[in-house]
């Protein structure tokens, strides 16, 4: 079967790139780690790929706000390329720090197509970084090609700035009406998730969103940390059938294979 080439961006403090590349490798991708400085030097290199992935980490230490400096560099140097990339029907994913980058670049959700920042990811209500596994649902009717039909899954969150907020009610409505919400935190008993099930206090329990094409996707949880059933925190109690993190990458790869 055709392998989908995946550009996994690295450098400047990204640190979850190895396992992200591995997740794509396991699901039919042909990942390549590319340093941001090489991409800035030669933006045309992006065109070789079907998917570009922004991994988690602490880019620039998150010293000026999570993902902020990395986002500013990408916007300055890669905006036109990334627009063309998405318009060509290709896919973008950003995980944790990568999600923060996409949001602060403005490519996500990009409601007006002008890369103006509409949403943000701010400090958790708890005020601290936390690492814990959460339950997630694909948002009913979502446009997101990475999460359509995704069964309920569990993944770890590992962040200090993951509280999803919208600029105003208009943006909030546009996300709901546009079916741009991709993934939400779920409570064990079905009601709205509260802390710690909603680990950061996100609006509507939003864990991930997409743009209007459904192809640009960002999420706070780490699907690339669930690579084998033995990564699950309760595998010694009941072994999961599959490493559910891979389901998300399978969807992305499948879509890219059909459409690019």
């Amino acid at each position, binding site marked *: 079967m055709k392998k989908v080439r995946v550009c996994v961006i690295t450098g400047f403090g990204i640190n979850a790139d190895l396992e992200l590349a591995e997740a794509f490798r396991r699901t039919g991708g042909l990942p390549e780690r590319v340093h941001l400085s090489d991409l800035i030097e030669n933006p045309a290199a992006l065109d070789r790929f079907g998917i570009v992935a922004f991994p988690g980490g602490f880019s620039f230490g998150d010293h000026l706000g999570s993902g*902020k400096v990395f986002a500013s560099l990408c916007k300055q140097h890669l905006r036109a390329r990334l627009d063309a990339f998405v318009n060509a029907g290709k896919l973008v994913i950003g995980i944790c720090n990568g999600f923060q980058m996409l949001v602060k670049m403005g490519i996500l959700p990009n409601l007006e197509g002008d890369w103006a920042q509409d949403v943000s990811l701010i400090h958790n209500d708890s005020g601290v970084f936390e690492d814990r596994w959460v339950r997630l649902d694909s948002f009913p009717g979502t446009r997101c090609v990475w999460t359509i039909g995704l069964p309920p899954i569990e993944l770890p969150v590992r962040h200090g700035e993951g509280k999803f907020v919208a600029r105003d009610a208009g943006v909030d409505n546009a996300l709901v009406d546009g079916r741009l919400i991709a993934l939400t935190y779920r409570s064990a008993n079905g009601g709205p998730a509260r802390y710690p099930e909603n680990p950061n206090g996100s609006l509507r329990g939003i864990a991930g969103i997409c743009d209007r094409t459904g192809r640009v996707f960002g999420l706070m949880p780490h699907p690339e940390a669930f690579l084998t059933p033995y990564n699950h925190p309760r595998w010694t109690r009941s072994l999961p059938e599959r490493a559910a993190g891979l389901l998300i990458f399978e969807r992305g790869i499948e879509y890219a294979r059909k459409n690019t």
Partner: protein
Amino acid sequence: MRIELFYRPSFPDGRAARLAASIWKNFGASIERCALVDVYLIEGTAGIGPEDIEDVFVDRVAQDYRLDRPAADDAGGAGWRYLVEIAYRAGVTDPVAITAEEALRLRRPDAVTKQTRVRSARQYLFTCGDLAAADRERIFSSLYNPLVETALVLTREEWNAGRRPPAASPDAVSPSEVTVREFDLASLDDEALNAFSREKLLALSLEEMHTVKDHFRDEAFLAARREAGLSGAITDVEIEMIAQTWSEHCKHKIFNAEIDYRDGERAEKIVSVFKTFVKKTTDLVARRKKYLLSVFEDDSGVIRFDRRHALCFKVETHNSPSALDPYGGAITGIVGVNRDVLATGRMATPIFNTNVLCFADPSAPESDVPPGLLHPRRVMEGVHRGIIDGGNQSGIPVVAGAFLFDPDYMGKPLVFCGTGGLLPARLRGEKSWVKIVRPGDLAVMVGGRIGKDGIHGATFSSLALDETSPTSAVQIGDPITQKKMWDFLEEARGLVLFKGLTDNGAGGLSSSLGELAKRSGGVEIELDRCPLKYRGLAPWEILVSESQERMSVAVNPKDIDAFLALAKKRSVEATAVGTFTDSGFIRIRHGGTTVGLLDMEFLHDGLPVMKLKAEWKPMRRRAESHRYESNDALLLKVLANPNVCSRENLVRQYDHEVRGCSIVKPFAGVNADGHADGAVYKPVFDSWRGFTVTHGIAPRLSPFDAYDMAAHAVDEAFRAHVALGGDPEYAAALDNFCWPDPIAAPANPDGEYKLAQLVRAGRGLQDACLAYGLPLISGKDSMKNDAFVAAANVKPARKISIKPTLLVSLVGIVGDVRRAQTTDFKASGDLVFVLGETGDELGGSILELETGNAYPDCPKVNFEKAMKLYRALARAVRKGLVRSCHDCAEGGLAVALAESAIGGRLGFSISLDDVPYAWKPDSRDPSASATELLFSESPSRFVVTVSPANARRFQSLFKNLPAGFLGIVTEEQRLNVRFGNDQVLSVGLNEALDAWKGGLA
């Protein structure tokens, strides 16, 4: 330019709310509202405009900003009462400012120049009632550390009167005179030599000073000096290099001393505790174990992981810096030990961190804290924050570790920082764990620049803490600068652009280039080529500065262009600062002239051996009768003891699973909040092979016998490895000795006893490792863990010494991680067994702490019996017969059972009748016997559950071994224990859970 950034009021700031809550909790002061403002002071840029500022600094949705006008009223609301602005002192690394400057440079290369200066600050705005002056002082001083930071406090009235925080950066570091001084040692008598060492913070003894003085009379050496244009007087560059190289920190003088050891009538001579007990142990074990690749000769120890990979491991201590600045001390400890791994062989990749932290009671009343020392709560908070930032920002998971509490850590906390790394076994066919440095290779400094921070760290840590402790030894680490360096080095390693490297830690360049030069036979260093943070560093300061995030790399001249070009492309600073030679000398130049010439042999081997005396006096305690409250009450107390209780709140804040390799995590059980005995890690994506990370530490046994303390530490690490499913035949350990000053002196009258404890501990370590076939592959010793408290109201001056503490840290192979074990009970109906013998040896136990009883005997390890049991358990695990396994440690059987039940949210119903025991319980007082069985901390024991279907096969593996059937796991969430006909314990699971979770909350 002054930028002030803040969250818009519609987006509440979680950090601010947390701060207000902690002020209420710690100080009882009610803060109505708290707001945070991030401040940047930028000078010397050309044409940076609001658009640049917004793109680089501002989250346009959640934040607002003010340029050159105050944000206070908008950020804090009109009603704020106090403003506190905190900034780093000049010369202290300001990681946020470093990033800000780099971000501006990347965006506007034209606008950032050599004149550009960026500093950061953080502002707090408190809305609250008037605070009494004393409360203000306590609350605001908890926000910063005056050693590294300055604070400005403004009241509303002062603000209204027009006072404002500074618009410009604080003054720069005061420059040193850039000259080289010479000292004629020949003219100095003993008193003057001592004074010279003391005043220059050299930490050299009189004998050592004489050795240096004599060397500078050696004719052959003087001839070489004349040829180099140097006189017979020693330069400051030379004496500083000698002092750093010969420091206790670098040379382990006490650990290598010649000791006259007396034990009653018996006397013996021990030549080097290290050689006698550590190295010899490994030499003996190595005859049987073929997986050792590099031991005691590199920055970490290296073992074979599989055919394609080697695994390395190192644990360092950062006690003295953490005592002064807990945050900075801990974070530099982490990034420092990360560099030890980066520096291993031809570069290993750090893949996990682990930390063991020892503090005094964080809830101690303020009045218990001697003047001049930080409250243990502040020490703990700062260290914890340093470990969070050090690991999380570097993308290295914190997989294991421990928190310990003992009043004697008031004087110095112990901060053990460990890191493991992975190396490809071969690099283009060559062994990856062997460095190659050839004459002619260039000495390249990579990473951060050199400043005055961290001067004299190595010599300072060799002295006790007192009021004169130098603050220049305190630093802030910058993980992101190091991460970029690491990424670059990994890329360069792949391209084989270098074959040898080491880190710049204690002693700075003097130490790193001195070490690498051993492999070629000499080095020439050009100090004026070294990149500096600012002007005005004396040559000796450049040589010994311990500025962080730097490595020294040996690069073949043919590769230097490619090496430097790649560094530039990755925004990493790299500069050739010298050349390796085979001259036998370290030659140091500055501005074209030679400012130092040292004989390599003298520098590395000229240090005189220290001669010390040790006298062992066994402690004797009389047996006394003990009274107990109910076991129910005791269990709840023991579960809430800070040494036992849940650390979830602390450990949640560590990223424990970045890299996607975590198999057994710090949290086990149905709600992922149960106890874990250690970590299981699977480092290679396409293999099921893994390894454990565990620790053993037992300082409360030191007052009984340091031999048992050490034996217990080895046993604890080893049994946790086995409990996790590790292979008892394939493990390796590190020894970290932290001791109070063991050199007898008028101010240290029991020095000989403390040194005897060191000998006893060495022997215990050796006996245990030999019995378990456990090689020691690296280690560290830290010998001056005392604090002198000499304030006006403390007379006479008091000394607080830690209990002698040996930390044993272990990595061991798990052949197939799919057989790994967790501690949580899995299902009701499972059978509960205890493995190992319980003894009447409660000295040093948590029960002792919680009851105030004194017990005569501390636990003893029977190594041979234990090893048989470990092998049997490993067989049971391999055969898939075990459903849960928890080692019995602090709090004994009772805590192991309770924690297993908590993990599974299940109960148990058991009897103590068949607990294998090593003494006859007193039949007249069954409840006392039950208490002792429940809470004894005898080593080498486990609580294991087995499904009923496997019970017979399981039991057949333990014939003739101490294994007792206790009872069953129950659906009913109750902990029920019987002994004979008596119900001796019955506690609801939720009660136990609340106690266990509440201990440190």
